[in-house]
Structures are given as structure tokens and as C-alpha cells.
């Protein structure tokens, strides 16, 4: 187990390093060293330009992983994941709707994305209780399909929205900048704090609702606050980089093998998600600037099928 944990930490460092190094103009090892020492040359400026992108992945991955851990614990469902349940799609819908109606500023976007995540989150909460794992995922898939067709329909009405829409279909961290990240940081921090506060209760909730209740966990309160945290995390990430699919699913699945307790699992899942997202971004860059959301979906789809078979 310690070996595996070491590999995770090592891979995270490697991915951060590679994500700064690789690209259209890859830097050499000595240039990377120069960048770390703070010299200013042509190449170190290129590396510096990649910094927001790396930081974005470093923020987005963990946020999604944390949301996924909470959803899975809440719904007792190893297949639950924000993108599979349609929470991302809800955010996308409202953002595109906002584009259509002229709300295009960064603040508008964040508010709309949060509202979209909230609506779908409430719907999921209402139905999650009574569903078996598979049916919950099916409900989520149906929600995303329906929302996606509405988004596509809306975008047919104006050329501008149509042009924007295709970028809103997939998650991308290419256009990352420090302002966007700074703008959502407060929301992410609140989500993080809520998640940390709820972690012990969620851990007990995993053993079953009745047992947890007899241990003194307030089930309704835990779920409400956790869902709020999920909405904050997923909504704000979707507002700045679009829907990123399947990421939380694999991170959480692997993290479960690293530790039994939920709090530790979530830390490992966050690290795994960050390095996965950076890795997918690097793969996408090598394949000719494919958006990271597409790469995660293309790798995640088969992995999801493989998970089901077991």
C-alpha cells in the first residue's frame, strides 16, 4: 500500500513537471531548472505561460474528485459521478441560456453555472434515495441527454451562441487564466470546508443510513450540506472550464484501494484526479490540442464499461 501511495505522489510531481515542460515548444531539462531558479529567458516565459493551465488542472481535478467522493458516500453508489448524473450538463445548459440572453460576464457565468448545478443536484437528491445504483446512473444519463438536446436546440437560434456552444460541450483548461481561477476560489474554498466538516458524518453514513442515525448522525443535515458542497465545487469548476467527464469516477475507484477511511480516500482521490487531469491534458496536447474533456471521456468510457463488468 505504501508503494502504491508513493507512486501516486511521484506521478503527481511528474505530471506537474511534464505539463509545464511539454507543448508546441517543449522545454529542455536545463530550461526547466532555469525557470525554477527564477531566471528570465524566452523559454522560461513560455513555461510561465503554461502555468495557469497547470494550476487550473490542479484546482479542477481535486474539486471534482471531492465532489464525487461525497456523492458516492451519500448515495451508496460506486457509479455515481457528477458528469454521469448530469450535474455538469445542468450548469452547461444555464450558461448557454445566459449567452443567449446576453449574460456573458464572468460573474454571470459563475452564478448561472452554480444555479444549474443546484437544480440538477436537487433533482438527483430527490430521486437518489429510492434508486438502485444502476438506475440512478440511468436517470442521470437520461437527464444529460435531455439537457444536451435542449442546449443544442437553443444554440440553433443564433450563430454566436452556436459558435460558443461547441466550446461549452467539452471541458477545456486551455483558456485558463489567473483571474478566472481567483474568481471561483472563494466558492471552491467554501465547498472544501463544507466537505471537510461533513467527512466524518459521511464516513458513518456509508455503513448504512440506520446505523449512522443510531450513531448520532443527522442524516438530512449531512446530505443537504454535502450536496451544497458538491454543487459549489462542480458548479464553479464547470463555470471556468466546462464539463469534465468521468474524471471523478476513476480517481475515486483507485483511491478506494489506497485507504479504508473516507477522509484519507478523498485526499488520495484529489491527488489522483489532479494527476489524471494533467495527464489527459498532456495527451490531448500531443494529439494536436484536443480538449481535455474529450480525452477524459474517450479514456473514461471504456474504463467505465470495464468497471461494470466486475
Amino acid at each position, binding site marked *: 500500500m505504501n508503494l502504491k501511495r508513493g507512486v501516486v505522489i511521484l506521478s503527481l510531481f511528474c505530471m506537474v513537471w511534464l505539463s509545464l515542460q511539454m507543448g508546441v515548444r517543449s522545454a529542455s531539462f536545463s530550461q526547466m531548472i532555469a525557470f525554477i531558479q527564477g531566471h528570465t529567458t524566452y523559454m522560461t516565459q513560455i513555461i510561465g505561460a503554461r502555468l495557469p493551465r497547470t494550476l487550473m488542472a490542479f484546482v479542477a481535478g481535486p474539486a471534482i474528485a471531492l465532489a464525487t467522493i461525497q456523492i458516492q458516500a451519500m448515495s451508496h453508489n460506486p457509479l455515481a459521478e457528477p458528469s454521469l448524473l448530469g450535474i455538469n450538463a445542468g450548469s452547461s445548459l444555464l450558461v448557454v441560456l445566459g449567452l443567449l440572453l446576453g449574460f456573458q460576464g464572468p460573474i454571470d457565468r459563475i452564478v448561472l453555472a452554480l444555479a444549474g448545478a443546484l437544480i440538477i443536484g436537487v433533482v438527483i437528491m430527490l430521486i437518489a434515495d429510492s434508486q438502485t445504483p444502476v438506475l440512478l446512473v440511468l436517470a442521470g444519463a*437520461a437527464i444529460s441527454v435531455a439537457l444536451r438536446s435542449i442546449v443544442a*436546440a437553443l444554440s*440553433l437560434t443564433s450563430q454566436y451562441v452556436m459558435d460558443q456552444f461547441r466550446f461549452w460541450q467539452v471541458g477545456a483548461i486551455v483558456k485558463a487564466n489567473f483571474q478566472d481561477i481567483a474568481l471561483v476560489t472563494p466558492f471552491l474554498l467554501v465547498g472544501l470546508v463544507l466537505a471537510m466538516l461533513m467527512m466524518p458524518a459521511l464516513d458513518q453514513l456509508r455503513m448504512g443510513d440506520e446505523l449512522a442515525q443510531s450513531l448520532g448522525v443527522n442524516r438530512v443535515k449531512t446530505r443537504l450540506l454535502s450536496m451544497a458542497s458538491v454543487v459549489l465545487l462542480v458548479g464553479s469548476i464547470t463555470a471556468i472550464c466546462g464539463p469534465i467527464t468521468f474524471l471523478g469516477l476513476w480517481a475515486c475507484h483507485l483511491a478506494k484501494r489506497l485507504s479504508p477511511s473516507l477522509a484519507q480516500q478523498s485526499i488520495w482521490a484529489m491527488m489522483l484526479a489532479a494527476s489524471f487531469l494533467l495527464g489527459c491534458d498532456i495527451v490531448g496536447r500531443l494529439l494536436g490540442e484536443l480538449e481535455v474533456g474529450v480525452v477524459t471521456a474517450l479514456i473514461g468510457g471504456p474504463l467505465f*464499461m470495464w468497471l461494470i463488468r466486475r
Partner: protein
Amino acid sequence: MKRLIVGIICLNVLYCWVPSYLLPFRLPQAIGAILCGMAFGLAGYLFQTLLDNPLASPDVLGVSAGCSLAAVICLLFLGFGPMLTGWVACLAGLSVSGLIFWLSNRHGYSKLTMILIGIGSQAMMSAGISIALLKANTYQLKDALRWLNGSLNEADWPGLMVLGMILVIAFGLIIVFYESIGLYKLGDELAQSLGLDVKKLRTVFFVVSLCLVGFACSVCGPMASLSFICGPIVTRWLKKENPIFEAGLMGALILSAANFNPFPAGILTGLIGAPVLLYVLYQMKGNL
């Protein structure tokens, strides 16, 4: 059922003859609405019955997404005409669904495995469509987006003929096996003990409904949510044991109505889809 048929006829007569000089242009669209609507309605109902779940329709499981992915690639990157695009889309839909069927059958069939594999493939197809859209030129986008939602403007006689023949075969099979489908709804074990060959029935009707979806897609695109909404609507409305023909007619009715709006028909069906979905989810909460 009578009311449904009367409704379809009225709508289409109105659509074609008012004003009357548009008849030659509007007739293929009207016939297309009836045939495609029936195909999607029947296929959706069959899927939902075979998988025993109102949410498991071809569009949720990625069959329609496979069609649109192929169509978008043909239009945007290979520059194919509409006719050839239709055929390629149909083939792609069939092969995607064949793959889903094969993967879920490999270690013994189970409804849930098939549903989940369908969801996985649906997500991948959507990712593929996103790539195609991102790499496309702005002026080509409108054509491609229409393929994502569905529209009857491209309906032509050769495609409709093929779809019509498939529909006739499907109707024949459904009439022959009508009782068996009723039995199948009782559950695998009970149906088997009553002398039904469950596996044969399932295979026959999956193939039939996949052909229906594939060929209908080749005529009018995936037609967002249409195959999903017909089943729940007729089940709720008619309270009949096995409303399979009614589901087909319902599809035809909805598409005929959609012909009247100025946007592609897929927009309307997509918009109807969301409330129906909410209703189905609400129902499921009660039952499960």
C-alpha cells in the same frame, strides 16, 4: 387508438393542403413525419419493454448518438451528400448497437449490464461528436447541428421507401409476437415457465428496433428524445396492457405536430423530452 389516427391524418392534411400549392414540397415531409415517428415510437417502446425500464431508450443508450457521430463526420470532414450520409449513419448506428449487444452478451446477458454499457458508449459517442464540432468550420456548423437534433427537411422518397419496408416487417413481427411481448412483461422466469423462448424474442426485437432506429435516423437524424417520450406518454394516457402500436402512432402524432414549427423538428421533441423525463423519474420514485 382511433383518436390518435384521426389526429395524425388531420394534422398532416392541414400541413399539406394549406396552402395547397405547397403539396409537392410538403408531402415527403408529412410522410416522413409519420414513418419516422412510428419507427422511433415503436423502437423506443420495444427497448423500454425489453430492458424493463422506462429510461432505457435508444437515445439514452447511445444508438442514436452513434448515428449522429457518423453523420457529422461524413458531412464535415468527408463532404458526403445527404443520401450517402444517411446510409453511413444508419450503418454506424447498427454497428454501435451491435457492439453494445455483443459486449453485454459476452458473459451472460443481463439487462443492467446492457444499460450501463449503453450509457458508457453514449458518453463516448458524445465526446466524439464534440471533437467533430470543435474542429468544424463555423459555416458548416448549422448543417452538423441539425444532424445532432434531427430534422425532416431532408426527407426524400428512396429513404422513405426503405424505412416503410422496414416498418412493414416490424409490424408483421409485432402482430405475430404480440401475445409473447405481453408475456415477456411478466418477467423472465414466469415467461419462460409459460413456454416463451425469452432469448429468441429478445434477440428478434432488439434487431428489429435497432433497424428501425438506424433507418429512421438516416432519414431525419436522431430526433432528440422522441423514442424516449412515446412509451411513457401512452402508458400513462391509455392505461392499456400492451400499448405498442399506440406508442408508434404517438410518435407519428408528435412529429406531425412538430412539422408546423419553423425550427427543425428535433427542437420540439427535445423540449417535450425534459418534462416527460421528470414525470418518469417521479413515477420511479414511487415504484422502486
